[in-house]
Structures are given as structure tokens and as C-alpha cells.
């Protein structure tokens, strides 16, 4: 698109000004995040209900998760939120190279998270904790009077795989988005004047991080001493 002076313009013709365009796009992503909150909300609702009905079984089941890997992944994601902020910062100042770098760093951290997550999943598979015909559960806690009901513990793993799986899917989509942004950034598409997609994708990434910030204590930490 070109305006009357021949310079490239990124103002879509149905908006009256850049300001209106940026405001619209920003409001759009916030509203999208509202729908995401409601979407995850259904699963959090199910988690809350079943945890309160079966506190013992859920505590026993969460003992099978690795706090170490969970903590590492939390750190990785918080780090990626930082790199996203740096990408937005670079875009706002028109620093092309540093924009590409920080976008790339975000992708690397996102992949690291998924790698660790896949490792955890594989571990669960070997332990027989993936719900299915081969599911076996032993209460490994010490000093409890009665072992937890394996069927109720299985519900924990339904929710664990459901919630972390959905979260991982959002991560994969996010990495796809950031790859696109990085290719565009290398081509010099984003300027100081126009770089709306960077903060928009950034907001999405922060949201996905935030979901994990809730998932981590709910799944890994509650009920452990």
C-alpha cells in the first residue's frame, strides 16, 4: 500500500488514523484474552471442584510431579516474558537487530519449555501415569494412614494432562506467531512508526505465561510439604 507521497503506509483504509488503528488492534487482543480467560476458566472450575472433593487423592497424585522441572519451567517462562518485553522495547525504538534477537530469544525459551514439558510427559508415560488401559497408581507419600484411591488420583492426571496440554498447545501457537514476526522483522517490516503486531503478540505471550503461573502451584505445589 502506498499513500499519495509514495511512501509505504500501514494505515488500513477503513481506519481514520493510525491512532484509531492501534487502539482497535490493542482492544481487539485484550478482548481475545478475555475469551481465553473464560476458556481456561472452565477447566479451572473442574479442577477446583474435584480438588475440593478429593483433596487426599489429588495431594497423593501431585507427589508424582517433579517440583524441580516445574520450577525450571516457571523460570524459563518468566525469562521469556522478559525477552518479549525487550522485543517490544526494541520495536518502539526502531532497533531492527535487537528486535530480531529478542524475538529469537523468546522462541528459544518457548522451545526449551516445551522440551522440558515433553520430558516430563515421557517420564509419566514410563511410570504408567498416563490415563488409559495401562494406568497404575501407587501412593508414594510417607506417613499417611490410608493410601489414596487410584481412581480419584486418575482424575488428577486427567486434569493435569488436559490443562498442561491445552497450555502447551497455546505455547506452540505462540511460537508459530513469533516465528512469523521474526521473519517479518528480518525483512524490516516493522518500523518505529508501525509495529502493532509486536505488542499484540507480546500480550498473548504474557497471557500464556500467566496461565502457567496459575497451573504451577495448583498442580505441583498444593498439598506438598
Amino acid at each position, binding site marked *: 500500500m502506498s499513500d499519495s507521497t509514495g511512501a509505504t503506509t500501514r494505515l488500513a483504509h477503513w481506519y481514520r488514523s493510525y491512532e484509531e488503528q492501534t487502539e*482497535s488492534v490493542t*482492544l481487539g487482543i485484550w478482548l481475545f484474552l478475555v475469551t*481465553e480467560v473464560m476458556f481456561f476458566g*472452565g*477447566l479451572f472450575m*473442574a479442577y477446583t471442584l474435584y480438588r475440593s472433593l478429593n483433596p487426599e487423592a489429588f495431594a497423593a497424585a501431585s507427589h508424582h510431579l517433579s517440583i524441580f522441572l516445574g520450577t525450571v519451567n516457571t523460570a524459563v517462562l518468566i525469562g521469556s516474558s522478559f525477552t518479549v518485553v525487550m522485543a517490544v522495547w526494541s520495536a518502539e525504538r526502531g532497533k531492527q537487530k535487537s528486535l530480531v534477537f529478542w524475538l529469537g530469544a523468546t522462541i528459544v525459551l518457548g522451545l526449551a519449555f516445551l522440551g522440558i514439558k515433553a520430558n516430563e510427559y515421557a517420564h509419566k508415560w514410563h511410570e504408567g501415569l498416563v490415563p*488409559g488401559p495401562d494406568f497404575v497408581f501407587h501412593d508414594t507419600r510417607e506417613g499417611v494412614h490410608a493410601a489414596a484411591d487410584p*481412581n480419584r488420583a486418575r*482424575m488428577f492426571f*486427567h486434569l493435569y494432562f488436559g490443562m498442561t496440554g491445552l497450555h502447551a498447545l497455546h505455547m506452540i501457537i505462540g511460537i508459530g506467531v513469533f516465528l512469523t514476526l521474526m521473519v517479518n522483522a528480518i525483512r524490516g517490516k516493522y518500523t518505529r512508526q508501525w509495529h502493532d503486531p509486536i505488542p499484540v503478540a507480546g500480550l498473548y505471550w504474557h497471557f500464556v505465561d500467566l496461565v502457567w503461573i496459575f497451573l504451577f502451584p495448583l498442580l505441583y505445589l498444593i498439598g506438598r510439604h
Partner: protein
Amino acid sequence: MSSAALHTQSDTNYLNDGFGIRSWLLTTDHKRIAILYLITNTLFFFMGSVMAALIRIELLTPEGDLVQPDMYNRLFTMHGVIMVFLFLIPTIPAVFGNFLIPIMIGAKDLAFPRLNLGSWYVFNVGAALIFYSIFKGGLDTGWTFYVPFSSTYSATNVMTAAVGIFIAGFASIMTGLNFLVTIHRMRAPGMTWFRMPLFVWAHYATSIIILLGTPVVAVTILMVGAERVLHLGIFDPAYGGDPILFQHLFWFYSHPAVYIMVLPAMGIQSELVAGMCRNRVFGYRAVCYASVAIAVLGFLVWGHHMYTTGQSPYAGTIFSFLTMLVAVPSAVKTFNWTATLYRGSISWETPMIYAAAFIGLFIIGGTTGVMLGTLGIDVHVHDTYFVVAHFHYVMVGVTMMGFMGGLHYWWPKITGRMYDAFWSKISALLIFVGFNLTFFPQFLLGYMGMPRRYHAYPEQWQTLNVLSTAGASVLGIGFVLPAIYFLWSLKKGKKAEANPWGAVGLEWEISSPPISHNFEETPVVINEAYDYQAGHVGVIPSTEKEADLV
């Protein structure tokens, strides 16, 4: 004060701005996308009607003779799924909302035109999956998909249909998000919140419901799918899961979904009453607030679908009370439409007939809703034809009257042609009479205890069932007529003027049909909606004096 028209009559408009299938399938013009939706959704409506016709023919006699029980279960399920998810929920926003919101607030298009086109494709992928499951033999869970039947026991094509609904939901979200951003950010200079037409307010409230509700039903469907395919039994009692949780999550969306269906129709109703009576809508602000109040209260009443599921009587009492509260903003609207007639100059054109029918049917549908919200009565008539009659009065009586009224009101604007006045009035009357004949007997049947979802019934209920089927036939004729005269009008109809009804509103101040960008220049809004004293709401900015008045 001069009333400078916003348009100069020109030969180019959005309909002849590009021909050929590509110019339609790749269009980002909100008006063309509205027409794409109108075509597909009308088709879906007729498909859903065929199922309804088969149901009514089966119920003509007490014995189950036309179809077997299994087939009957599939028929009412598919009728419900098609009508609810492919017609009632999406149609008014996607057709009239799409066409009118940008024009009514003085914008060139919606905020995200490509997202808008995308929504139509996403919607059709969802619809295709639903029809695929139907042609593969259908599904029999009822449109409510209750677990454990839908998750474990039904051997029909539940998954494809559920995924179809899941996907169609995203189209709904895309549309709602687009409307909210557009209404917030793209209003023309001078178009303040309380100058907006009530149609826009109604869609604003609807979009809020879509955004907050649809994701919840989406994740619920996802959980049912995970249970069916991956055996992640989140609702499975064997693992401590609770099937009732499904009902809570489902109705958390599906009660507000009723307001996704009726609020846009109420928005149309406000426009029709004002335009046909040439009168300012009585208590304009009260109607604005009523729309928002209905949207908010709608999220707090879902438990009234679950009085008989073992829900605690205290929860039931609170849900019952909150349900009654919804009647307040609904009544405010009804009184205000009626009061708008007072000292208006009413012309009994076809849209006015629909507007009057709307008020009558909504009163019956609404008050029976209050009856059903009452704990004692609901337990008595739960799962009977009383419920069936009630929700048809609301969902068809309101949404369908709104849709038909709106179609007759804005048809000249959308197509640039006038339809046949005589036949459209005959059809409107047939629909009104046929509708009442179909569904009023069902109140009586339900009160006498006839349960819903059975293909056979005791003989003493035959008379009322025959009346109902007769009414459905009249209704059917009433709906076939518009298909004929509307198509006829495209070829032979008289050319429509910019403002054939003498109504006030930005959409009537541009040409019929509008140009591709709606306005030659961004209008400046100087009057509130329905200002029948001034006779117009916008001016072009070159008449600076009036621009200064903003």
C-alpha cells in the same frame, strides 16, 4: 437548519462494485459478508425446518408410525442443533449486525474486515461438520449433549457434530469481538454512546455475552471430546467426576445464549417500532440499560435449568429469584416499545406487522418464562411440552419475528429493491397465525403432562397435536412465500429510494444500496438517534456550521 443529505445518488454501489464469484468469496466488505451469511443461514433454516416438519408429521397420530424411536431422537436432535447453532445464535448479528453496525455509527467498515470474512469461512467449516455428521446418520443426544450419554453411551456421530459446534462458536467470537472493537473505537465524530441507535446497543450487549459465554461452552465440548476420544473422563463418576458439572458449564453458556438470540432481535424491534411509528423510542436510555442488564443478569440464572437435578433447594431459590429479575428489563423494553406507539404516526407496512407480532409473542414467551422460573411450577412441568412451547415462543417468536421484521425493513436498503407489499403482509399474518396455532396447543399439552422427546403418545392428546401440526403447515407456507417474493423483487421489484419508510437514522441518509465505503465522506453526527423533529442525524462535514455544533 439545513438537512444536507449524506449521499449523492450514484450508479455505483457495493453490489455492482465487482462481479463474479471471486469478488464475493474474497470480499472484505461488511455488507457483502452480511449477504453471504444471509444466503447460507437461510439455507440452514430451511434444512432445520424439514426436520421440524417430519417431527410434526410423526406426531399427527398417537402411534409411532412414520419413524422409529431411534430416528425420532435423531430428528429432534438435528432440528435443535441446526436451528440453535446454525441459525438462531449467529444469524441476526452476522447478517444485520454486520450490514448495519458500521453504517449506523458512521464507519467505513468493521474494525477487522478480514477477520469478518474469516468468520464466515470458519462458520461454514463448523456447519459442514455438523451436516457431515447428519448425513452419516445423525446424532441422538438432544441439542444439549448431556453426559454421560454424549460422552460414553451414544453410538451416533456425536464427535463430528460437537467439533462442528466448537468451530462455529469461534465464528461467533470473531463477530462479537469485531463488533465490540468497532463500537468502541470507530464511531463517527459526534456519535456519542447515547446517540447510538438501540440496535447498536443491543449488539454491544450481545457481543459481551458472546465473548464471555462462548469460550466456556467451547472448553466444555472439548472436555466431552477428551472423554469420548482420549478417555480423559472429567465428567466420569468412575473417577470421581460429576456429570452435573457438565450441565452447570453447559447452561452457563446456553442460558445466556438465549440472549444472544433475542437481544439482537430486540435491537431490530426498537428500530422497527421507531421507524414505523416515526417516533422517538420512549425511554431511550432505559432501553440501553435494559440491554446491558439482560446481558449481565443472563449469566446468573443458569441453575433454573437444573431444578430437578438434585441441586440444593437454596441454590434453586436464588436462581429462581434471579430469573424473575430478568423479567424486569424485559418488561421495561416491552412497555417502552408499546409507549412508542402512543402519538406515533403508525403505518401498517409489513415490518410493523412483525413488530406487533413480536410484542404479542414476547409477552406470552416471557411470562411463561417467569412461570418456569418458579420452582414449584417448573418441577411440575419439567421436560414437558410446556417447556417446548415456552422456548419456541421466545426463540422463534422473538428471534424469528425480529429477523423477518428486520429483513422486510432493511431489504430495500440491502438490495435497492422493493418487495411486494400485499404478499408480504399475507405472509406475515400467516406466520403469526401459524406460529400460535403450532405452539399454543403445546402449552396445554405440556400442562396436561405430555413429555417432550417421545415419538408416540396416549390418544387423548391427539386433537391438540393435530392442531399443532396444522399450525406448522400454515407456518411453513408463511415461510415459503417470502422466499418467492424476495427473489422476485431482485429482478422485478420497484427501485427503492434512499429512505422508503421516512425513517431517521444514518442508514437512511445514504443511498440504497449503499456505496462500498458507505459514506462519501465521514459524516458528523449532530442529533440523537430517532430525532424525528430534526428528521436526520448526520451531516457531511463541509457544512461546517453544523459540524461546529458537535
